[in-house]
């Protein structure tokens, strides 16, 4: 099976005055279709830099990066934008929704850059919102939604364009335990449908919901192991006390 992502000898070096700092120091890794990877590590270990490079938001100083067998390094800015648009869905810790813009419009955003007719856009947006369980909140702006709901809107935005891969940078970092599990539940369902998920987290519980754990330390890949006792979010949610969702 061909890897979705294949990085070899990746370096990201920041120069600050006379000092050089290697945020990524010779990282090599393959991600295969259908994988669910949790990237762990203390802050400053390079995991976020790695994610940003995987997501084509940032470029490495040196090294090889193949996405679906194609070299990313040689691509132009426009080609990178199209690659992000067609293949990658992002979920951020701080949700990164457009404020004062409805959930519907936020989810529609990636489609606006694809030349899709309005009627088709509507179908896709509604489908994405249904799959995160927020169809009835589509006319609400982020300030009218709870953190969990906002993150679900962000997930809907990430999947609206049927990406091959979802990149999530600490998606549960701002959420309580139960809401976190609900988000993970969506990720696991999406993964079951065949979408590759790469997620940065520093919570052990969240990492245990993945299929593989990768640990970064000082810009290097320190450890990569399959999760033995994988947690299934649907089951975990049954164990957690039910909370009334707080709507801000």
């Amino acid at each position: 099976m061909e890897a979705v992502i294949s990085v070899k000898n990746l370096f990201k070096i920041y120069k600050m005055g006379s000092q050089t700092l290697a945020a990524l120091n010779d990282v090599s890794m393959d991600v295969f279709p259908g994988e669910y990877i949790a990237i762990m590590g203390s802050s400053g270990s390079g995991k976020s830099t790695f994610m940003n490079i995987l997501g084509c938001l940032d470029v490495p100083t040196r090294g090889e990066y193949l996405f679906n067998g194609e070299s990313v390094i040689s691509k132009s800015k426009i080609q990178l934008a199209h690659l992000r648009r067609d293949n990658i869905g992002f979920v951020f810790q701080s949700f990164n929704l457009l404020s004062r813009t409805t959930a519907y419009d936020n989810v529609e955003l990636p489609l606006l850059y694809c030349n899709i007719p309005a009627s088709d856009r509507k179908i896709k947006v509604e489908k994405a919102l249904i799959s995160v369980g927020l169809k009835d909140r589509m006319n609400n702006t982020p300030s009218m939604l709870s953190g969990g709901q906002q993150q679900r809107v962000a997930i809907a935005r990430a999947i609206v364009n049927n990406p091959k891969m979802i990149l999530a940078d600490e998606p549960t970092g701002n959420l309580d335990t139960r809401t976190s599990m609900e988000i993970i539940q969506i990720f696991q369902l999406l993964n079951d449908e065949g979408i590759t998920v790469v997620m940065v987290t520093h919570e052990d519980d969240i990492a245990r919901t993945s299929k593989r754990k990768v640990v970064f330390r000082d810009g290097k890949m320190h450890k990569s192991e399959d999760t033995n006792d994988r947690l299934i979010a649907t089951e975990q949610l049954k164990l957690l006390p039910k909370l009334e969702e707080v709507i801000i």
Partner: protein
Amino acid sequence: MLIKSSVKVAFKALGKNRFRSFLTMLGIIIGVVSVIVMEAIGNGSSADVNTRISSLGTNLITISPVSARSFGVSQESGTAPSLKKEDADILISEVSSITAVSPLVRTTVQMKIGNKNVRSSISGVYPEYFAIRDLEIETGSIFTKANEKKFDKVCIIGKTVQNNLFSSVQDPIGSTIRIGTIPFLIIGTLKSKGTSGGGQDQDDIVLAPYSTVQNRMLGSENIQQIYASAESEDVVNTAVTEIERTLRNKHQLLPSSPNDFTISTQLDLRQTLNTVVNTITILLSAVAAISLLVGGIGIMNIMLVSVTERTREIGIRMAVGATGFDVQFQLLLEAVVLSLIGGITGIILGLTTAYLVSAFGGFTTIVSVESIILSFVVSTLIGIFFGWYPSRKAANLNPIDALRYE
């Protein structure tokens, strides 16, 4: 990104900061309004000048004697005794391109009626003079050739003289006015012509038959001016040449000696005044253009602020697949929408202001279609021009830097 959704997004973005958008537009609005109004006032004044000159009679030709020289010192122009009534009479028979001619003698005297008196000038002219000078009768009638032959003591008075000697309810027709020592019968009054281009009161006149004034009041054969009317504006120059030749023959001037008369037409005056009006219009337009420029800089400023403020949003858009071009296009569109709305509002307000200025301000205003098209095009260009730099700046942002921006 589809144009329609881009326009929608642009309107939304501007709508989020209504007050700021309005202030930005205000620059463009003021610019466009001033361009249109200044243009309209310029065009209006130019047309005004032209009608005023036309009311003097554009085919009008004036012949005056040159200045007299006494012991080598030149006197004021028109003082040389070189023009006679016969000069006027010969012109009408010899010069084919003129349709009417009249000599003019003038003297300033005291005029009185009852217990009121006023000092004004009385001019002796032929009946043709009224047609030549475009003078219109308000009440009564003009004098005739018969009056002229019989040296009749009849006169027609201008509005200023009428107002000075009569109350508004009195009818001057049929009254006798003592001009100098001679009683004249008033047979008509003139419609007001207002002040001339030179600031002279054109209504402060009394007109009487030439023969009457010349024989009964002056006794001299010399006349002050000859007025002639060319067939049309186009033949004015031909007429001038012919008049010059005829008078030189009549005065038996040697080819080497200079004219003892001067001929002037309204064409020069019209040209001069038009030049002045054009200069003023250009000056006003320059001021208006500067305010448009200032408005444009306002747009650039707001767009720069907007780019900084929305760096994160730009990052999000880029993360979900917007290219630099998409981002630039969107911001540019916002700038253009902003300046276009400003431009259209400016045009509407400009038209209103131009109307109000002519209705209440006493200026004639003529709004030209060109100025509307010009302001429309210019305001769009300003949007593109001043929106370019900020939008370019946004398009060149690195997605990750934009996303991390706090």
